């Protein structure tokens, strides 16, 4: 028995089975996962890894286990989509942990959250003083959504009655030295226009640029291969191997 070869074949089967099953299950982002989804992911991953290296049993029972967990997860997703009550029981629901600037300590106890945990989550949101918070909601996935008191909200052009042009999203015109004609046409521009713009940056050919983007407001972002930075800032706090 060539164990190495068998492990390679089993790894290919487990890897692609896992890939296909997770694609069917959806949940594109880790941040969307609830605690149960997280545990589910670990369990399914663990079954796949055992299927690869546990040669003492056939791969078939592992695969059946993998498939069963994936089917159950899919069923659970379907049921929670259709039956909101059950979704609340299984996935939990958002709870208000700070209301009108006051920490709801009873809610925290119920959620098994310490005040220090909430303060940490607030800091993650860029809030270092609980005084600034009007409402804080602990979402089902464990993240904290914060609404600051009006006096601490950032000033917007609307507050100042300033009219601003919509910036829209940026579209790549050049990527890795290659011109993307479709995007240029989509932005109602042509190659001649782009070259005129690039000349202003001292660029003669698109192969000299790494990235060029254009947003709806007409603002161009240009990044050349030659960055011309003589001294690169080092943000490391300790001398490492590189």
């Amino acid at each position, binding site marked *: *028995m060539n164990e190495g070869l068998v492990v390679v074949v089993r790894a290919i*089967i487990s890897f692609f*089975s896992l890939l296909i099953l997770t694609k069917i299950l959806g949940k594109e982002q880790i941040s969307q996962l609830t605690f149960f989804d997280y545990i589910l992911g670990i369990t399914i991953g663990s079954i796949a890894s055992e299927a690869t290296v546990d040669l003492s049993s056939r791969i078939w029972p592992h*695969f059946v286990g993998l498939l069963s967990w994936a089917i159950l997860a899919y069923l659970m997703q379907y049921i929670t989509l259709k039956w909101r009550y059950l979704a609340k029981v299984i996935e939990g629901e958002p709870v208000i942990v700070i209301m009108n600037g006051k920490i709801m300590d009873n809610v925290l106890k119920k959620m098994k959250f310490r005040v220090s945990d909430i303060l940490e989550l607030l800091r993650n949101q860029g809030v270092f003083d609980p005084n600034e918070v009007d409402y804080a909601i602990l979402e089902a996935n464990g993240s904290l959504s914060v609404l600051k008191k009006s006096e601490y909200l950032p000033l917007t052009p609307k507050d100042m009655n300033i009219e601003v042009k919509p910036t829209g999203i940026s579209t790549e015109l050049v990527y890795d030295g290659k011109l993307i004609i479709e995007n240029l046409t989509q932005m109602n521009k042509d190659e001649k226009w782009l070259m005129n713009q690039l000349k202003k940056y001292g660029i003669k050919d698109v192969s000299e640029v790494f990235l060029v983007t254009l947003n709806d407001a007409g603002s161009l972002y240009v990044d050349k291969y030659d960055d011309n930075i003589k001294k690169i800032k080092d943000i490391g706090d300790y001398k490492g191997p590189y």
Partner: protein
Amino acid sequence: MRRFLIYLIPIVAMLIFLLIMISGDFLKKPFSTDDDIAESISDLIEAVNNEAWEEADNKIIGLELAWKKVLFRVQFSSERGEINELTTSIARLKGAIMAKDKPGALMELYEAYSHWNDLGS
């Protein structure tokens, strides 16, 4: 076409994986005259029962070669335990035949047959 391939490729891949995983029983079956393990074992039982040690000596070499052939096919769908047990059984059987030990050889032959039956199922 691309959309069709996006669905087709995972389905085909899953079918291939399923075939590899459950092919054990099929791949155990003899593909030629020199890889029939079950028949080799029953021939050996007969030879040992008749105490035809020279014939048993020849047959055990055939069984070893047949097992090597089949092992390559079934290794992806079988458990290592059964594979190793069967390999060990054949090695012990060789010794028992060499020593002309009828009870020992019969014990090993029936054990090998049991491992063969359990392999991949």
